[in-house]
C-alpha cells in the first residue's frame, strides 16, 4: 500500500463464547485509502471481529490500535466518536424521524434550539455528495434499503469516519444500486477512509477491493492484493475444500409444458406477463429489484391474485385466490424475506418443516402423529444438510443458511409441482449456497419445475435452463441458456438498447 502507516492495527485478537472459539489470534491491518475485503463462510468470525471493532464485545485477548493509539471502545457510540463505524445489510434507521435527523442523531448541535434549516442543508449536501436524491426532510420510513444505507454512509461521513465497516451492504440491492454504492465507497476510499467490506458475492470483491483477507473457523487465513487472487483460490481458502461442486448444474431433459401463464397482470404492479414452464425446468427470473418479479411470484402463489390473464397447470386453468389454493394445486413459494415471512422462529425446526403439511400427520381427531412427523422432518434435514442440534431446536438458534434450508424443507415437504424460489441464496454463506444450488439441480432432475428469482446474475444464469428478464413490471425477454450472458441479461434488465 502506498501509505506505510495503517490507520488500524488489530493484533492477536481472540474471542471465546463459552464452548465456541469465535476468533483465535487474529491480526489485521487496515490502511487509509484502501478497500479491504473480508471473506469467509458464516461462522468464520467476520461478525465477531466487526463487533469487537465497534465496541459491542470486548476481546478476550489481543489489542487494537487506531491512529497510533490504543483503541478500546466501550460501545458502538464510543467507537463512532473515535471514527469507527459499521453499516449493515439491513440498516437500522429510525423510521419516524426525518432523514436529516437520522444522519445527525447523537451528534447534532448541542444547543437547546435545533437549527433545523442548517441541519437540512448539511444533510442535503452530504446526500448529494453521495449522488443520491433523497429529501432530508422526509421521514426515513419510506426509504429503500439503498436509501437507508446512503443515510448511514452520510452519517459516517458526518462523523469523520476513519474506518468504515460494511457488512454485506449489497445483499439487498439491485445491480444499479450496487454500482452507485461502489461509487460511494470509492469516493470514501479516495478521501482516505479505510473501508472494510464484507460480501458473499465473489465478483463484487474483485470489482471493489484493493486487498482481500480470508477468514475460516475464526482464523485469519490470508491477506493478499486483489491482483494475486483468483476466484477459485479464494473459494478454496474460504471453505477449505475443492470448489468443484460450486455452480454444478446438470443437463436436463426437456419435459412437456407444465405451467402456462398468459397475459397475467395486476394493475399498477405488472402487466401482460406470458411464459411457459416445462416439467423439470429451471426458469430463472432476472431483473432489478422492483422490476415486479416478486409481485409476479406472489400472484402465482395467491397472496395478491392477478386481476387479468390466465394460469394453466397441466392444461387446466387455475383460479388461484389464496396460498391455500396455490398449495392445493402444487405451487409453493419460498419467500425472499425469511425473517418476516418465512419462519416461525420461536417454534422448533420440526414444527416449521411440517407447518404447511400438518394435515398429512394429523388423524381425523386432529392429533398429530409426532413420530411420522419427525421421520419426514429428519429425512429432509439430512437431505438438505440442515445443521441443528436436534429437530426440537427453535429455529431462532440456527444460522441464516440453515434457516433458509429449513424454509426450503417446509416447501419441499408439500411435494410441489412448481416451486418458486425467491432469492434463495441471499445472505447465506458459500457452503450453504452450494448446497442450495446442488439441491435445485437435484429437484429439477427429479421433475419439479422451478422458478428461480435471483438478483445474483451469475447464479441465475448458471442455474437456469432459460432466463426470463423483467423490467418495470414487464417481461422483456426470455433467453435460452446458450444466449444468456451476463452482459445481455443485464442490458435488457436495465433497458439498454
Amino acid at each position: 500500500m502506498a501509505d506505510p502507516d495503517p490507520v488500524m492495527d488489530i493484533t492477536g485478537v481472540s474471542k471465546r463464547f463459552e464452548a465456541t472459539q469465535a476468533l483465535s489470534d487474529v491480526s489485521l491491518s487496515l490502511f487509509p485509502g484502501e478497500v479491504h475485503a473480508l471473506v469467509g463462510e458464516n461462522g468464520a468470525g467476520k461478525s465477531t471481529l466487526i463487533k469487537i471493532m465497534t465496541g459491542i464485545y470486548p476481546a478476550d485477548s489481543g489489542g487494537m490500535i487506531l491512529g497510533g493509539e490504543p483503541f478500546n471502545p466501550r460501545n458502538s457510540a464510543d467507537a463512532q466518536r473515535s471514527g469507527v463505524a459499521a453499516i449493515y445489510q439491513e440498516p437500522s434507521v429510525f423510521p419516524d424521524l426525518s432523514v436529516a435527523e437520522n444522519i445527525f442523531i447523537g451528534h447534532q448541535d448541542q444547543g437547546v434550539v435545533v437549527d433545523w434549516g442548517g441541519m437540512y442543508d448539511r444533510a442535503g449536501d452530504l446526500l448529494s455528495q453521495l449522488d443520491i436524491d433523497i429529501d432530508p426532510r422526509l421521514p426515513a420510513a419510506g426509504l429503500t434499503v439503498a436509501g437507508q444505507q446512503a443515510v448511514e454512509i452520510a452519517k459516517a461521513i458526518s462523523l469523520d469516519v476513519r474506518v468504515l465497516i460494511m457488512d454485506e451492504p449489497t445483499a439487498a440491492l439491485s445491480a444499479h444500486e450496487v454500482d452507485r454504492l461502489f461509487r460511494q465507497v470509492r469516493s470514501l476510499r479516495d478521501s482516505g477512509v479505510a473501508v472494510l467490506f464484507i460480501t458473499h458475492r465473489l465478483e463484487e470483491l474483485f470489482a471493489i477491493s484493493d486487498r482481500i483477507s480470508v477468514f475460516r473457523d475464526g482464523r485469519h487465513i490470508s491477506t493478499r492484493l486483489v491482483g494475486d487472487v483468483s476466484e477459485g483460490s479464494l473459494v478454496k481458502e474460504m471453505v477449505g475444500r475443492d470448489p468443484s461442486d460450486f455452480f454444478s448444474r446438470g443437463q436436463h431433459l426437456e419435459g412437456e409444458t407444465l405451467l402456462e401463464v398468459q397475459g397475467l397482470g395486476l394493475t399498477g404492479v405488472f402487466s401482460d406477463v406470458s411464459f411457459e414452464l416445462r416439467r423439470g425446468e429451471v426458469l430463472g427470473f432476472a431483473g432489478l429489484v422492483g422490476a415486479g418479479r416478486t409481485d409476479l411470484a406472489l400472484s402465482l402463489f395467491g397472496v395478491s391474485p392477478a386481476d387479468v390473464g390466465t394460469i394453466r397447470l397441466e392444461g387446466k386453468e387455475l383460479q388461484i385466490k389464496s396460498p391455500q389454493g396455490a398449495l392445493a394445486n402444487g405451487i409453493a413459494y419460498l419467500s425472499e424475506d425469511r425473517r418476516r415471512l418465512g419462519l416461525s422462529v420461536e417454534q422448533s425446526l420440526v414444527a416449521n418443516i411440517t407447518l404447511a403439511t400438518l394435515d398429512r400427520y394429523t388423524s381425523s381427531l386432529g392429533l398429530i402423529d409426532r413420530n411420522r412427523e419427525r421421520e419426514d422432518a429428519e429425512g429432509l434435514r439430512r437431505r438438505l444438510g440442515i445443521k441443528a442440534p436436534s429437530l426440537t431446536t427453535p429455529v431462532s438458534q440456527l444460522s441464516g443458511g440453515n434457516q433458509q434450508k429449513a424454509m426450503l424443507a417446509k416447501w419441499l415437504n408439500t411435494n410441489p409441482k412448481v416451486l418458486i424460489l425467491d432469492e434463495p441464496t441471499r445472505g447465506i454463506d458459500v457452503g450453504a449456497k452450494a448446497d442450495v444450488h446442488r439441491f435445485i439441480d437435484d429437484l429439477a432432475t427429479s421433475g419439479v419445475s422451478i422458478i428461480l428469482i435471483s438478483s445474483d446474475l451469475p447464479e441465475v444464469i448458471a442455474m437456469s435452463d432459460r432466463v426470463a428478464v423483467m423490467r418495470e413490471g414487464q417481461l422483456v425477454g426470455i433467453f435460452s441458456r446458450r444466449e444468456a450472458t451476463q452482459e445481455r441479461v443485464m442490458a435488457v434488465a436495465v433497458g439498454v438498447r
Partner: protein
Amino acid sequence: MTDSAGMEAVARRRVNLGPDRVKELTLLGIIVLSVLMFSFLVDDYLSGRFFNRVTTSVVVVALLAAAQALVIFSRNIDLSVGSMVGVAAYLTGDFLGATEQGPLPAMLVAILVGAVLGSLNGALVAYGGVPAIIVTLGTLALFRTLLSIYSGGANILAGSLPSWVLEFNNITLVEVGGLQLRLVFVIALVVVLLLHWAFARLRWGRRIYALGSNPSAAAQAGLRTSSMVFWSFVGSGALAGLAGFMFLTRAGTISATAGAGLELESVAAAVVGGVSILGGSGTMLGAFLGAVLIDTLKLSLIRVPQVSEFWRDAFLGVLILLAVIVDVTLRNRFNRRWSSQARAAMEDSAPAAVGTARMAGGSGSADA
C-alpha cells in the same frame, strides 16, 4: 451408526427439556420458595386450611389465565374477560333462579354465554381487522354497561339460587390429612391440562403457535389465519364463561360489577407464567402456574400482620416483580448454557459440512 443413534437419543432427551419446560420448572421452584418464605414469617402458615383456600380461590384466575393465554398465543389480547365473567355469572344466576337446574346445565349456559360474547370479539378482530386491544377495550366497557342496564342495579342473591350452588365449592373428591382436593380445582386443572396437551399435540394448537409466532409466514403456509383468530376468541370467551360459573358458585351474590378487574389479573398471571405477550410462545401449564403463584402471594400477604391493608397491593406488585426477575434470570442462565451447547453442536459438525449424506447436527455434543 448405532453409536451416533445412541448419542442422538441422549441429545434428544436433554434438548426436550427445552425453554418451555425450564419456564415451568423455575416457576414451580419460585412457588415453593415463596411458600417456604412465608412459612417463616407466619405462624401456622403451612396448614391444610391454607392449601384449601388457595386451591379454591385460584380457580377463577386460573381459568382466565388459560383464556388469556389462548388469545395471547395467537398474538392478540383479550381485555374483556373480566366483563365476560360478570355477564356469564349474572345470566347464569338468572337462569338458575328461574329454572332451579343442576350444575351441568348451568355450566353449559355460562360457557355458551362466554362463547357468544367471545365470538363478537373474534369477529371484530379477525374479520373487521381492528386490533384486539382496541376491540376488547371496547367490549370490556360495552359488556359491563349492558350488564348494568340489564340488571337494573339489582343483585342476584344467594337466596334465589338452588342450594347446590353454595355447596359446589366445598365438594371434596379426596382428603389427605386436612388437604382437600376439591372438585372446582380439579375441573380447572383438568381443563388446563387438556388445553396444554392440545396445544402440544393437536394440529390447531401447533397452528396457533405458528400464527402468533409469525402471522405472515402462517398465511403463506396456507393457514386460514382469520378463522383461527376468530375461534381463539370464541375459546377465550367460553373459558371466561366457565370462570363466570365458578365465580357464581364462590360468591353466591352477583352484582353488576362482578369480575371487574380480573382482565388485568389474567394478563399478569399469563405473563408471569412465561407466556410471551408477543405471541407464539409459552404454555398453558405455565399460565396456570403463574395464576397459582399470584394467588398464593396474594393470600399469603393477608396473613402477614405486619403488612397493612393499604400496602398490600404494593407488596404484591413488588413480589410479582421479584418473582419475574428471579424467573428471567434463572431462565436466561439456563438458556445461555443451552444455546451455547447448540452452537457448539453446530461448530463440531462444521468441518464435515458439505456432503449430501452427512449426518447433520452433531447431535452428540449436548454432552459437552
